[in-house]
């Protein structure tokens, strides 16, 4: 059931029950390409629909969105990305201790889980990944690091993610990858976009 929340004169916020419904609604809106809709911002339980008020109105967008019949076809089409990770992050031992398991078991659970890009944000190319292993649930660091290197693989709450560029951040770092999350020379610079499935693969440290 989609609930529409007022969001000013140039957007509508559509709220649904869960992430699956949000991804399905996002895919349906993307495929429908409604006139006057200029941007879609998928999130955990919402899709923000930005519109051009010279072309359409919030009321018209609400009506057209309500008429859509979101399926799960959009998710199935989004593909899978495999990301090689060297599991030597500075927080790996602490994460293992918090979860009461060994570091190897953290790696086994991270590589064993099936992850899905729920939404993007924080930085270009940063995808929030939700996994199917509920035991991987750790709090953010109490004090964020001022600089995290690009390619760092982190955990926060039940999300996982990979920092696309050097940036500050508070996630628990368990490893790093050479995969490029954000590359402006690609037609679609972000490697991880909503709906894409992700698996992590442990690789030995090079050199």
């Amino acid at each position, binding site marked *: 059931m989609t609930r529409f929340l007022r*969001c000013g004169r140039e957007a509508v916020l559509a709220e649904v029950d869960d992430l699956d419904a949000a991804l399905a609604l996002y895919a349906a809106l993307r495929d429908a390409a409604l006139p006057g809709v200029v941007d879609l*911002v998928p*999130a955990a339980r*919402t899709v923000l629909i930005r519109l051009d008020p010279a072309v359409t109105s919030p009321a018209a967008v609400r009506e057209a969105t309500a008429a859509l019949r979101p399926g799960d076809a959009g998710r199935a089409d989004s593909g899978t990305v495999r990301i090689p990770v060297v599991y030597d992050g500075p927080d790996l031992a602490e994460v293992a201790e918090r979860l009461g398991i060994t570091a190897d078991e953290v790696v086994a659970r991270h590589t064993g889980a099936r992850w899905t890009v729920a939404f993007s944000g924080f930085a270009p190319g940063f995808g929030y990944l939700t996994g199917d292993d509920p035991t991987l649930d750790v709090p953010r660091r109490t004090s964020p690091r001022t600089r995290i290197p690009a390619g760092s693989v982190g955990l926060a709450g039940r999300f996982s993610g990979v920092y696309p560029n050097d940036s500050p951040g508070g996630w628990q770092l368990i490893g790093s990858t050479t995969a490029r999350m954000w590359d402006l020379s690609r037609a679609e*610079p972000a490697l991880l976009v909503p709906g894409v499935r992700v698996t992590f693969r442990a690789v030995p440290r090079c050199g």
Partner: protein
Amino acid sequence: MTVLRTGPMTVIKDAGRPGHAYQGVAPSGAVDRGAYARANALAGNPPGAAVLECTLGGLRVSFDEPAVVALTGTDAVLTVDGTAAGDDRPVPVPAGAVVAVTVPRRGLRSYLAVRGGIDVAPVLGSRSTDQLAGVGPERPAPGDVLPIGAPPADPVSSPGAPPPTAEGPLEVDLGPRDDWFTTEAIATFLGAEYTVSPAGNAIGLRLDGPALIRSRTAELPSEGVVRGAVQVPPDGRPIIFQADHPVTGGYPVIAVLTPEAADRAAQLRPGATIRFTRAPQ
């Protein structure tokens, strides 16, 4: 056009970078969209041409070839070789002349349009510098030569009288998360005076004033926001999102400014006092 000085901050801006939110890219674009659009109209440019967004004046550029420029947004004065040429109208500039933007007494961001538009390479379809994400052209620096596009075929035409300077409270529509606040918090939000804190930029304006108390303390999953959205973090002090706002925020948005009010917010200086009021429906 050669950049001689940039003042405190000058960036290249256009109508923004829509369509990439799913990749984590903000809409960006001119912070005061009305002033930006008017600068292009005065210069005879099509909508969407790139201009210079100059915060608190101090910009100096020179032109190798004759040009037509227009300045909007604040009461800063455009000078050509040191002579005041006014603002809010098309100004012809001879080859070799130096054009400067004085420090405004009112407002924050001036828009300098050049007929033909600034023709740097677009990134993801936009020539706007996104100051949060680092997407788009570099900030111009002294010595930089900025290419100017071919002038449009149409002659310069007047876009009419300048819009009257709006006064009074900033108009908002409540939502999407006004139901996360107590009735008293809504009344405070729509009645109290807030002061613009110094920690403002093209991403957001932080406000000092009475804290807004939430009626729900549950975690709100991150969700998209728009320019002009008023987010309330746990300390209860509102933040008005501006053009370079991040794609998701984890705190409830109590209200969204009207587009006109969001343009006015773009011109607020630290220390300014403001009130919010409900926009007519």
